[in-house]
């Protein structure tokens, strides 16, 4: 049964708040997803001749956290990388289908992938600050290297804002000129979040952002995500079901088909997915029977 997770949802870790605005029976309407979220329609993705995603549909609600869970190799990372056209960076990789950002298809023929990535930020599995840059320069990188800002004061403002949003400002305000590699792993990951936020994206993608972090750093990132959800639309891939249960408003479950192509098998409010899954495979997965 799913009792374990149910009780976890009812009595979360002490001092741990549920994400605001989480409703047990919430639904995402297409209109909502179009207004500030993401609409994914019949998305396919390949690596060479291998199909990694098949006909994925998803409605991402604006200013909510949508978690994508599923067993290893089911295409979660491929899926999230399709949302900012990072998938095609891999040689031989391609995707087709529709991904609508405020109604505009990011796979449209006239759309520039580089422009899409400015609107849809991404945080990776392992913290990857630029080792040759200082803390400050890391956060400023997205602005400077895009040629957005010229005035120093503007850059400084944006960097401070990004670091504050990433709940890192107080820890690094005295070492802005130190190399980013001197920070701890958790701080580095929050620096990467600050770096992504500094370009003011509409959507933030997080690809297993805590998998390389210890539990304390993980909780800090989760807290941060709940805070960020007030302003940003967030999609997080996680192999950690408890994490999905703790932070997300909505949960999407992916599974591998017979030919190893990833499919979206179930989507709904997080409470529903973890307490009353409709699909047998979801139930098996979240109760730990496989995956």
């Amino acid at each position, binding site marked *: 049964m799913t009792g374990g997770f149910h009780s976890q949802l009812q009595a979360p870790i002490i001092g741990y708040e549920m994400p605001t605005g989480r409703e047990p029976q919430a639904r995402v309407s297409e209109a909502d997803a179009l207004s500030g979220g993401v609409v994914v329609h019949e998305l396919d993705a390949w690596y060479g001749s291998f199909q990694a995603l098949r006909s994925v549909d998803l409605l991402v609600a604006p200013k909510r956290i949508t978690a994508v869970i599923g067993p290893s190799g089911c295409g979660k990372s491929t899926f999230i990388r399709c949302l*900012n056209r*990072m998938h095609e960076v891999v040689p031989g990789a391609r995707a087709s289908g529709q991904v609508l950002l405020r109604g505009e298809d990011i796979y449209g023929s006239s759309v520039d992938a580089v422009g899409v990535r*400015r609107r849809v*930020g991404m945080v*990776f599995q392992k913290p990857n600050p630029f080792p040759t840059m200082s803390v400050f320069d890391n956060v400023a990188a*997205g602005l400077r290297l*895009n040629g957005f800002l010229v005035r120093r004061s503007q850059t400084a403002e944006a960097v401070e804002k990004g670091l504050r949003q990433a709940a890192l400002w107080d820890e690094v305000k005295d070492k802005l000129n130190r190399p980013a590699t001197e920070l701890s792993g958790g701080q580095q990951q929050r620096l990467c979040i600050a770096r*992504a936020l500094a370009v003011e994206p509409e959507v933030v993608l997080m690809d297993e952002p805590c998998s390389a972090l210890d539990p304390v750093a993980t909780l800090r990132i989760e807290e941060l995500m709940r805070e960020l959800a007030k302003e940003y639309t967030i999609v997080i891939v996680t192999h950690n079901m408890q994490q999905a249960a703790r932070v997300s408003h909505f949960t999407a479950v992916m599974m591998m088909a017979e030919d190893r192509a990833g499919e979206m098998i179930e989507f709904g409010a997080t409470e529903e997915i973890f307490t009353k899954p409709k699909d047998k495979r979801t139930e098996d997965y979240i109760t730990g029977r496989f995956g």
Partner: protein
Amino acid sequence: MSISTYRRRRATNAVMLGLCAASAFAAVGVLLLILGFVLANGIRSLNLDFFTHMPSPAGESGGGVANSIAGSFLTVGLAALIGIPMGVGAGIFLSEYAGHRLGDVIRFTADVLTGVPSIVVGIVVYGLIVLRMGNFSALAAGIALAIIMLPIVARSSEEMLRLVPHSQREAALALGISRWRTILSVVMPAAQRGLVTGGLLAVARAAGETAPLIFTALGNRFMNLSVTGGPIDALPLRIWRYGIGPYDEWHQQAWAASFVLVLTVFVISLTARLLLRRR
């Protein structure tokens, strides 16, 4: 296994290990031998005049090789100016853009180019540039040396750029930074030291080349600092001229010039290694 077999094997092992170690030390020893030998023979001519004066007329004592040193700087400088940017560019293309098949073709070509005898490079540049320009020049020599440097710089740059983790490129691309900006501002700074090292090693290699200069720089007893105007001297050429000449004075100057050249190349290589080592 009998005791005698065991003893025999241990002895064989010791002998072979000793031979290997001796070979390794011999390699180091050869460099010391070269440095020592050229120093011992050239020390009498090594003085300030050697660096600041022009060659004295044949048969007269004294004089220096200032024109050769200046010429070497000029030709190798031109070669670096042409060869390093092109080499790094090729390295960037190989590491960041080229697909498997195209990359392999270019890499193979570069390796073949590394193996082309340098005298052949000289004669080709003679045919293509010197004949067309109507005279020998520092520019022709620089181009010949640049051709020698090009594959070295290209392959070392490629290797160094490849060492930069893929996650760095992804981090930049995901910020909406364009590909060329990512390479210029994220990948290249991370590989900076390696790139400099590759360039320095190529410069060291070019500085010692003689054959390509014979048909391009020709050599000149007088100071010439013009890029396109006429024959120019270089240290390796001066060593060659003096070495095969009939005067003792010349021979000694050739030794001294050899020492200066070997030491320069040695110092450049050492700098390159140290740069790469420091973290």
